[in-house]
C-alpha cells in the first residue's frame, strides 16, 4: 500500500466512525419504537438528510473496503499488484452500485 491509498483508507475510516455510531443508534431507536418498514420508509422518503448520510456512508465504505481487499489480495493471492488493484476497483464499484441502489430505494421510492 502506498501513501495515497493509506490516506484514503484512513480518511474514509475516520469519516465512517461517527456514521457507524449514528447508524447503530438509528437501528436501536427504530427497533425499540417498533417501527414497521412502512414507518421507516415514510420517514426516509424524500429526505435529503438521509440521502446524504447514507450516500456518504456508501461512498466511504466502497473506497475503504476495496483498498482493504486490494491489500489482502496482493499479500495472500497469486495476483500481482496491478491485477489485485483492478479486482479491487471492480469490487468497490459493485459495493457502490449496490449501496447507492439501496439508498435510492429508501429515499426516492
Amino acid at each position, binding site marked *: *500500500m*502506498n*501513501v495515497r*491509498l*493509506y*490516506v484514503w483508507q484512513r480518511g474514509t475510516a475516520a469519516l465512517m466512525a461517527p456514521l457507524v455510531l449514528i447508524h447503530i443508534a438509528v437501528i436501536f431507536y427504530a427497533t425499540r419504537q417498533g417501527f414497521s418498514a412502512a414507518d421507516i420508509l415514510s420517514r426516509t422518503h424524500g429526505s435529503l438528510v438521509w440521502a446524504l448520510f447514507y450516500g456518504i456512508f456508501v461512498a466511504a465504505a466502497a473506497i475503504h473496503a476495496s483498498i482493504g481487499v486490494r491489500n489482502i489480495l*496482493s*499479500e*495472500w493471492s497469486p495476483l500481482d*499488484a496491478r491485477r489485485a488493484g483492478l479486482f479491487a476497483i471492480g469490487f468497490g464499484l459493485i459495493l457502490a452500485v449496490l449501496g447507492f441502489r439501496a439508498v435510492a430505494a429508501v429515499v426516492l421510492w
Partner: protein
Amino acid sequence: MSEALAELSVSLWRGAAAGRYETYVVPRRESQTVLDVVTFVQRHIDPTLSYRFACRVGVCGSCAMTVNGRPRWTCRTHVSKVVAKADGSGRLEIGPLENLAVIKDLTTDMTPFFEKWQEAKGTFAPTKTRHDAIEQIRPDSAARVAADAAIECINCGVCYAGCDTVRWNAEYFGPAALTRAWTLVNDERDGGNTARLQAVAASGGCHACHSHQSCQELCPQTLNPTAAIAGLKRRTAAAYLKGEIKACETKP
C-alpha cells in the same frame, strides 16, 4: 568451562532450504547460552556445521537464529530460558532465521535485509562540511529523543525474521530498515528527508505494516519498531497532503 551438569539433546538445521533437523547430544552446563551449544557441536562433534557469530556479548548482531520456533540472539539467550525442563531434558531446536534464504545450516543470506536498508535511505545525508561549526543538538529535544529511541538497533535481523508482513510481502522493507529511516528522519543534522520519506511512502514501505507488533515483542534490544513505523506513517501522510512527496506504486 564449567562442569557438565547433564546432557542436552539439540536439533540443528543441516543443509540449505531442502535440509533437515539432525539431533546431537551436548553437555548441559551452568549459564550455558544457545550459542555455546552450537559452538560445542561445531568444535567437538561436526566441524562442517556453519553458523555466524562474532562478539558473543550482544553487540554485533550476527548470531541470530530461530530457537524453538522464535527468532533470538543466541549469544544472550540462556538454554535455561528456552528449554522448559530444568534438568535440560526439554526440547531445543535451532534453525536459521526465517524470511531469509538459507545458505547452509544456520547461516542465511542477509543481502535483501541490508539492501532494503539502502532502499529505505538508511544512510546519513550530511548538510555541512568539516569547515562548518558542529551543530548543537539538545539531547532533550523531541526529535532527538525520537531518534535516540531507535538508534540502538544492532541489525541482528530478529524483527525481520519474525515479521508476518515480510513473510507475506517480499517487497516490504521490514521493521529494521524503517526504524533506521525513522532515526534519520528525526536527525536534525540530516538533509535527505524528502527522498527518504518518498522512499518509505512507496508500495513496500511503512504503509504495508499491519502493526502486529511482533518486532516490538521480539527485539532483543527492546526497541519499538512498530512505533517508529507509525511515526513514518504520520510523517509521510503529512508530507503527501502538503504535496512534498508523491504516491509511488513502485519504489523510487
